[in-house]
């Protein structure tokens, strides 16, 4: 593993155009294998540079590229706002804020109005449920006594909850 790291560092030194660190240089000199690797890499680096191809574009490519570029619509850069509009933004925001404050001072929000109709509907529903449970004939109710008891308990709890939630 250490040998692999040493090889990567020898190779990376070629890419950075740097000299090997002194410690690695000493270790490389003391190992014939690493020394051989360094020489091989340097030779290959030299050969790759010397034989690097010089790519040539086909003759008509330039014209077709420029034709395509000219016909392509460049996304229009966002037009900057005119200067006077930029200066208008801050006063406009200030005026809107002042209006909101003035409106709030003139017409303060009152306490919430109770919706008595909703409460009355809920109370009548609870009462009806209770009456049904009590008025039903015992022959009908007897087999369902447990369920009726639970229903009554639930109704009571709902009533308590509604009363507790009133402001």
């Amino acid at each position, binding site marked *: 593993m250490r040998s692999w790291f040493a090889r990567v560092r020898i190779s990376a030194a070629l*890419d950075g155009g740097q000299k090997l660190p002194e410690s690695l240089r000493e270790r490389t000199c003391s190992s014939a294998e690493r020394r051989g690797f360094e020489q091989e890499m340097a030779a290959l680096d030299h050969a*790759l540079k010397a034989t690097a*191809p010089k790519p040539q574009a086909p003759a008509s490519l330039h014209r077709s590229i420029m034709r395509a*570029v000219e016909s392509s619509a460049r996304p229009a850069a966002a037009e900057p706002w005119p200067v006077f509009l930029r200066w208008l933004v801050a006063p406009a925001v200030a005026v809107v804020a002042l209006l909101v404050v003035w409106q709030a001072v003139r017409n303060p929000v009152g306490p919430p109005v109770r919706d008595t109709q909703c409460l009355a509907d809920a109370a009548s529903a609870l009462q009806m449920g209770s009456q049904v449970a009590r008025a039903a004939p015992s022959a009908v109710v007897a087999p369902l006594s447990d369920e009726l008891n639970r229903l009554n308990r639930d109704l009571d709890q709902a009533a308590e909850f509604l009363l507790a939630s009133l402001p």
Partner: protein
Amino acid sequence: MASDFQTCSDEELARQSQAGSLTAFEELVYRYEGRVYGFVANFCGSGPDAREVTQDTFVRAFQAIGRFDCRRPFAPWLFTIARRKCLDHRRAAPPAAGEPLPELPDDNDPAELLAQQEERRDLWELARRRLPETQFQALWLRYVEDLSVAGIAQALRKTRTHIRVLLFRARAALGRELKAAQGTGRPPGRVVDFADAVVNSEP
């Protein structure tokens, strides 16, 4: 005007293109069309496909030039676009299902032996055929385009450490290929001669 542009750096030309100068952009096209075509041809094959991808690369670069940061080098930015266009092209036109798969090499086939010898005559052709695509791209950008490790990392969307390892693996694999060529007992090709000459010329 054109001679003025010839002395400008790529980044200066990009800045003028951002300001709306089509002539400045055309100078960039002059400088890079062959390089981008060469890069693209490795992955799309030279011919109409490479032409089309090269053209798309410059059109995209023209459309996006407003977002280019002129304080950074231009080449990695352009090769990033070129690489993306190659990937898009490949995605859009995958190899046909009926296309025959490449035959496995047969060491006893004289035609294959001949092909191997031909292949070894050119170091870059050997690299293109034998290395994984990302390793070859890194090698190409390093030696043909002379990009720094940071530039290659930007173009290939990888970390610098990853690029260093890719370059290490690519060179090590090429070294093994050259050694194998020497060890086969066949008459060595020009690449082997050349690498030997380079090794022997090193102090």
